[in-house]
């Protein structure tokens, strides 16, 4: 009896049947993962407190749609199945077997491709929608959950096929499983790794770089890394990953979907092309396309050498030319060793270690060139100051910089609102920028001792282009310039973010950012909100009356922490908190706070359990502990205060380097806090006890 001729459809189903049987392990794992994710995960959520129904819905929605680890599993599934899917090309035995069968090559390729997708899709869809149906039966299903589930499936399906296509391309370039896994893995994360290296390089050598230049690299990396197109949101949202936020992300990552779709199409076409061109006799070799060997070598060696340079850079500091030569030589030598090892691996013979030496030379020139360009700042990044004609304003940020960047990348960022809050005196802006950048270069590159306050300046161009630089405002800067800038409300808003926010609560008031006055705080409600508004109004008035000289003398009395109502764009879930320094000259604020027993002149000695002072001399530690209330008062009065940016400038510190540990009584959350004396602030009894005169 002979079998009947099989139709194409029959052959397809038979091929799928055989493939599922052969890939049973992958199929079972996929079923198990999605089973535990959907039905089991949902059951666990439903078992939680019934009172929090809305919370449960949020959690269910996130479980069924966009849990971040499920993206990772989807990408990993695609990676493994893609490698497994083309692994027959790595064995001559298998090639002889499959390629002699009466089936079109591209049909077999497609069959494996579809089978891989089904191994992922069937359990995902089955359990996700099965769980939805179960929830509907139990009255838990909402439209939001259902749409999130559907959107999650579509998005992850796109991620799967994109990672699959990228992995297939790099697996097809190779001829053995080890190289296939290594190369596919490297090039799946290559954009992100090179972006990381690039940003590291820029941050290491461009002293004024606030990762502004690196942001472009990070974005490009995100575009070229399938998973990166969905994981970028983690830099945007750091709060709770509630369904509302996740829904927002899903809406926002539509460009990520488009980028992945483009990536998929490009890599699928390349994969199809490579599969057609790949010679079967290349089974078992390292790289199936000899022409790609130098390209791959260069792509691996350049970042490899840069990484070496950066690691060496953490050991050798300094920006001199001779340092660069040492760097370059080490980079090249290590790169050459790596090149020889890779060549020996590709050729399977150490004698061919220098076979394509020209590729190494090219890689070395590129690596040293890139390294040198950044090292010597060939493009003048650090010294860049825009021309006066091209700038319409600037923003100065010192502590809420992340908020700034976050706002720029979210839907809520309003260009007009932001622009309205700019400092617009171009001449003063550029003068501060020039001085600040120079001071930073002097300190970090030229090793000139320079004291000052670190800030970020963002030049906003007339074309709305934003260039941000890290600057150091030197303590000897022209005070008139700073006073002029300080008189601008926009500048003050930058230094003290939150002044314009809708503040509703005082969340903390502390002495010198150390000691919290618990009794100042009021519970949530109208009264608390009114109090917060009153404090803020007083603070604004004090700030109006102050100038830069007042606030830059290091005389901070305490810190005020205020929070605003939850932002709408976070679905009412994310609160923003702002810290405002209260200077000694801020009489109105201090008077208001004093009414609530928050006297910022010094911490209440009654709250302090003990103070320990210690001092190292001649290799031994001399220490004393004080519990007497009067001595504690005298010590606290002598402690150094933070400056306008909550730091203690060196010139304000006592040069002896005496450490002061405050041990609070039980009400205070901090048991210990390390501090230091201000210049001339060491009480006489401490000096005597520590034998400072000897």
């Amino acid at each position: 009896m002979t079998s009947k001729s099989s139709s194409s459809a029959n052959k397809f189903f038979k091929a799928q049947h055989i493939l599922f049987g052969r890939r049973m392990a992958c199929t079972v794992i996929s079923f198990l993962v999605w089973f535990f994710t959907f039905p089991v995960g949902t059951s666990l959520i439903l078992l939680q407190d019934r009172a929090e129904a809305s919370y449960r819905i949020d959690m269910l929605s996130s479980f069924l749609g966009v849990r971040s680890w499920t993206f990772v599993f989807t990408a990993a599934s695609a990676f493994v199945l893609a490698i497994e899917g083309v692994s027959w090309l790595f064995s001559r035995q298998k090639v002889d077997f499959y390629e002699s069968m009466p089936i079109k090559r591209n049909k077999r390729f497609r069959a494996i491709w579809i089978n891989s997708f089904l191994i992922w899709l069937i359990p995902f869809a089955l359990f996700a929608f099965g769980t939805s149906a179960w929830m509907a039966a139990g009255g838990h299903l909402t439209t939001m959950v259902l749409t999130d589930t559907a959107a999650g499936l579509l998005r992850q399906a796109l991620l799967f096929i994109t990672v699959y296509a990228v992995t297939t391309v790099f697996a097809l370039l190779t001829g053995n499983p080890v190289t296939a896994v290594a190369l596919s893995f490297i090039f799946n994360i290559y954009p992100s790794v090179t972006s990381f290296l690039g940003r590291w390089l820029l941050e290491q050598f461009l002293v004024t770089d606030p990762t502004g230049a690196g942001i472009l690299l990070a974005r490009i990396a995100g575009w070229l890394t399938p998973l990166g197109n969905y994981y970028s949101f983690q830099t945007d949202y750091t709060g709770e990953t509630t369904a509302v936020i996740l829904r927002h992300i899903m809406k926002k990552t539509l460009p990520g979907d488009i980028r992945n779709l483009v990536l998929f199409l490009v890599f699928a076409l390349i994969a199809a092309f490579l599969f057609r061109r790949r010679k079967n006799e290349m089974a078992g070799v390292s790289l199936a396309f000899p022409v790609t060997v130098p390209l791959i070598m260069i792509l691996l060696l350049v970042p490899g050498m840069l990484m070496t340079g950066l690691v060496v850079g953490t050991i050798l500091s300094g920006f001199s030319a001779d340092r660069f030569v040492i760097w370059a030589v080490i980079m090249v030598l290590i790169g050459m060793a790596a090149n020889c090892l890779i060549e020996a691996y590709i050729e399977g013979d150490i004698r061919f270690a220098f076979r394509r030496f020209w590729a190494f030379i090219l890689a070395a020139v590129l690596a040293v060139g890139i390294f040198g360009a950044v090292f010597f700042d060939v493009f003048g990044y650090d010294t860049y100051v825009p021309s006066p004609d091209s700038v319409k304003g600037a923003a100065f940020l010192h502590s809420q910089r992340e908020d700034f960047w976050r706002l720029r990348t979210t839907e809520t960022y309003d260009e007009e609102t932001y622009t309205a809050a700019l400092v617009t005196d171009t001449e003063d802006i550029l003068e501060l920028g020039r001085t600040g950048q120079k001071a930073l270069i002097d300190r970090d590159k030229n090793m000139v001792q320079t004291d000052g306050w670190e800030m970020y300046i963002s030049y906003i161009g007339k074309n709305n282009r934003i260039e941000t630089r890290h600057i150091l405002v030197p303590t000897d800067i022209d005070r008139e310039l700073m006073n002029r800038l300080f008189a601008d409300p926009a500048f003050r808003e930058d230094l003290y973010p939150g002044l314009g926010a809708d503040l509703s609560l005082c969340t903390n008031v502390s002495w010198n950012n150390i000691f919290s006055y618990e009794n100042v705080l009021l519970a949530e409600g109208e009264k608390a909100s009114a109090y917060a508004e009153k404090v803020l109004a007083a603070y604004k008035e004090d700030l109006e009356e102050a100038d830069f000289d007042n606030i830059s003398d290091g005389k901070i009395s305490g810190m005020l922490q205020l929070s605003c109502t939850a932002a709408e764009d976070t679905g009412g879930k994310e609160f923003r908190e702002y810290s405002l320094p209260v200077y000694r000259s801020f009489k109105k604020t201090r008077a208001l706070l004093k009414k609530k027993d928050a006297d910022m002149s010094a911490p209440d000695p009654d709250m302090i359990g003990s103070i320990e002072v210690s001092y190292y001399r001649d290799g031994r530690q001399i220490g004393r502990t004080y519990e007497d209330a009067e001595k504690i008062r005298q010590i606290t009065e002598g402690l150094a205060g933070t400056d306008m940016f909550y730091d203690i400038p060196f010139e304000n510190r006592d040069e002896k380097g005496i450490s002061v540990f405050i041990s609070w009584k039980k009400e205070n959350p901090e048991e210990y806090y390390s501090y230091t004396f201000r210049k001339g602030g060491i009480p006489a009894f401490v000096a005597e006890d520590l034998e400072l005169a000897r």
Partner: protein
Amino acid sequence: MIDIQSVSKSYEKTRAVQDVSLTLEDGQVFGLVGTNGAGKSTLLRLIAGILVPDRGKILVDNEPVYDNPAVRENIFFISDEPYYYPGSRAVDMKKWYRDMYPSFDTDRFDKLIKDFGLDPRRRIRTYSKGMRRQLAVICGICAGTRYLLCDETTDGLDPVMRQALKSLLGGDMEERGLTPVLASHNLRELEDICDHVGLLHQGGILLSQDIADMKLGLQKIQCVFEGEAPAEIPGLEVVSHEARGRLHTYVVRSGREEAETVFSQYSFVFYEILNLSLEEVFILETEAVGYDVKKLIIG
């Protein structure tokens, strides 16, 4: 008919097959001989459509074979290292081949498996090397293809199995016009199976001829002359002449009757015409074209 036209194939810098032209007629058993690395496997893989020639073309029944399922349905390739799915059993492979080859004969498969004493439910990985080869041959025979390409298939088989294979091939050739192509580095194994032999060396074809023609065109005469041996044998082309004491061995290019007529003119103490083995024929023929073939074939 398999028509190989000026085919060349290189692996990077190694020339595996070089300008080979051959015609494999239907209904013949074609033997492909050569040393290891001579290009036999490459040529078979080219014929099976696994590899693409760098130059030249291969036509099977006037159709290109590469990526052509219609043609491949008529070709079965038994690799020198047959592949089976991990964990598969003979019955699994039967299902696979049944789905792939429209003429696969499942009843015959079951019968042959039984006849060869193979357990169809046992995992193939537990089979011996010879059993795996037997299974490959059974799959190939039952696929019902017109061409069966065997790469060193006879090497792992014992004499009984070789005889069985010969019998199976003979039966299929007679019944359905099967054309087997057997590649081996061992001439002795092919001698009693093949009708036509091609000798490959360093990727090129040295010789391709019907075995019967080769044998018929050469005669080996051993004799002891009465008195002095003649300096030459006029009227015959002497391919080789060897003398050990008074015993002379001649190989002449002629028919048997013609040789007998010429040699009847001389007086002998002892005289006989012997059959040449395929190996001897090959050695003589290839030496005639300038190759020291003893080094190439006799293992």
